[in-house]
């Protein structure tokens, strides 16, 4: 991926378009046996994809004694007790709110930086452009292990340990290079003639970007927004390292409190897991169609 040539580009863009099309190609006649085999395989695959989610959902409505038994039952004295316990007797509410704040700020900052940088990379030829693209790709390889201690030191020197700001900044370093790369791919699919026409009409480069191209890039921005949101919503390592007091934790750092080494509180964990997944799943399904197109358009070219 590090040096993808232009040949890969039409394919990727084409695939992005094709994914919105309905039936891909006329299927050859299939025998009944083949049809049964196809559906059986897919049903098994779907079962594997769904059962952990469904099981956690079902378990979240069981009282503690039913979860702590080796007997298998789908429903057992259904109750909302676990949810009320998690919401009102633990710090879950604080964690949830912290996660929302961190994710929203990461999203807004990420979009602003990634779209401007992506536009510059897509439209202008400037000295240092190739180097910058290389750097963006290289950052994808950095293990959290090498950056986390120096970033921790920087945050400690700035007095930002145990704050949400430290997480927003750290997540931007993870998300921005990848998103700038994706946005560049998306801007490349918008015809350059539009920029030229806007320039003729007297708009400067920033006016062209802000008033002409950005509105057209809304699907690309949606992808970036969801990507940054979900990155921040699901991150764990920085959160555990940077946050210290209970009420400052985000979901990723706090949830492990329900599962100590011994006597795991599975009933609380399942209820919390359901509540964490709902916003993430909602955001995700809203975005998934664009996400694929954005990933393939951004990922396979350069």
């Amino acid at each position, binding site marked *: 991926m590090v040096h993808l040539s232009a040949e890969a580009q039409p394919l990727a863009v084409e695939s992005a378009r094709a994914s919105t099309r309905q039936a891909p190609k006329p299927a050859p006649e299939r025998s009944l046996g083949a049809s049964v085999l196809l559906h059986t395989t897919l049903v098994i695959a779907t079962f594997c*994809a769904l059962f952990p989610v469904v099981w956690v959902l079902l378990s979240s409505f069981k009282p503690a004694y039913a979860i702590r038994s080796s007997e*298998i039952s789908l429903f057992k004295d259904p109750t909302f007790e676990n949810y009320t316990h998690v919401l009102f007797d633990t710090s879950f509410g604080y964690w949830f709110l912290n996660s929302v704040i961190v994710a929203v700020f990461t999203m807004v900052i990420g979009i602003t*930086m990634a779209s401007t940088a992506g536009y510059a990379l897509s439209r202008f030829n400037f000295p240092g452009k190739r180097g910058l693209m290389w750097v963006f790709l290289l950052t994808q390889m950095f*293990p959290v292990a090498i950056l986390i201690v120096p970033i921790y030191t*920087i945050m400690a020197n700035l007095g930002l340990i145990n704050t949400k700001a430290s997480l927003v900044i750290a997540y931007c370093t993870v998300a921005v290079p990848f998103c700038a790369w994706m946005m560049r791919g998306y801007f490349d699919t918008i015809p350059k003639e539009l920029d030229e026409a806007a320039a003729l009409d007297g708009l400067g480069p920033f006016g062209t970007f802000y008033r002409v191209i950005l509105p057209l890039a809304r699907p690309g921005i949606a992808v970036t927004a969801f990507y940054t949101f979900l990155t921040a919503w699901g991150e764990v390592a920085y959160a555990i390292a940077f946050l210290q007091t209970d009420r400052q934790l985000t979901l990723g750092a706090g949830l492990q409190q329900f599962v100590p080494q011994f006597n795991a509180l599975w009933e609380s964990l399942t209820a919390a897991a359901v509540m964490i997944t709902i916003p993430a799943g909602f955001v995700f399904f809203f975005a998934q169609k664009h996400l694929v197109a954005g990933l393939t358009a951004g990922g*396979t070219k350069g």
Partner: protein
Amino acid sequence: MSSTTLPRTPSSSGRLRSSFDKHWPAYAMVIPTVIVLGVLVFYPLVQGIFQSFTNLNEANQNAEICTKVLGGAETCRPNPNQAEFVGLDNYVAVLTGEVGRFWMQFANTIVWTVACVAFHYGLGLGLAVMLNRAFKGRSIYRVLLIVPWAVPAFVSAFAWRFLFDQRFGLINSSLEAVGLSPVAWFDQRWTSLFTAIVTNIWLGVPFMMVALLGGLQSIPGELYEAASIDGASPWQRFRNITLPGLRPVSSTVILLGTIWTFNMFPIIFFVTRGQPAGQTEILVTGAFKAAFEGIRNYSLAATYGVLILSMLIVFATVYKRALRAQGDVF
């Protein structure tokens, strides 16, 4: 995306501008990102590499030791044991196994990465090929199959930890229900690593499936028709049309997937937690624990970080070379 095409008009003003005029908007647009990357990625990177040549840890990180005295004032004196430059000592210690368990974690990482990426790609490709046919219910299957992608990774990790729970987990209960004896998953190195691999496979297949489905849909249908007319068997069509047509997408997702899996933190951290006794730690979680658990050994974590990064760069370079040698468009 817009398909509007406007008449191309040569803009002569662009050519007349000076070099600075031509480039300043571009620089203005990339400068915030460049500053953030510089301050928060490259400066830490350089610092991390530097730390790997020192003996920095929690106890010796301060240049001065300050103690509070009565009345609230502080007195500071230089730290006698301040961190110092130790050359390649950390690398020698790590690679000879004197400190930490690098080679065991390396073996775990390799098993983990190879198993996960192979199953991600294999299952993803199989499902993508099936979903690329026209049949009733195709879009429903497609939506249901990407559900695992929608769940945040740490939540999936806990969900699977729950399923594999030794006493109350669904998997052991099912084993007992069919008359088998329950397995103490986290008491043995390979069964423990197995649970983490299963979790990560579950998590990662949807991405591969969707990316490969996008690739499949870009292969022109006429190629398959022509091949059918020439009497090619389904296997021959798969070998000679599908796989070559997927090359650009495959090479990208395998490279990305390998890097992501190699650096995957939450699954091992929450599913196996290194049980039993740290035997299922991979390099990334090992480095994290060195840095933030017990006596914080920052230089050890930095050494791990440099080794991980070097391995990934070598891998990416070799991978790229291999593809180019095969005449790929990479």
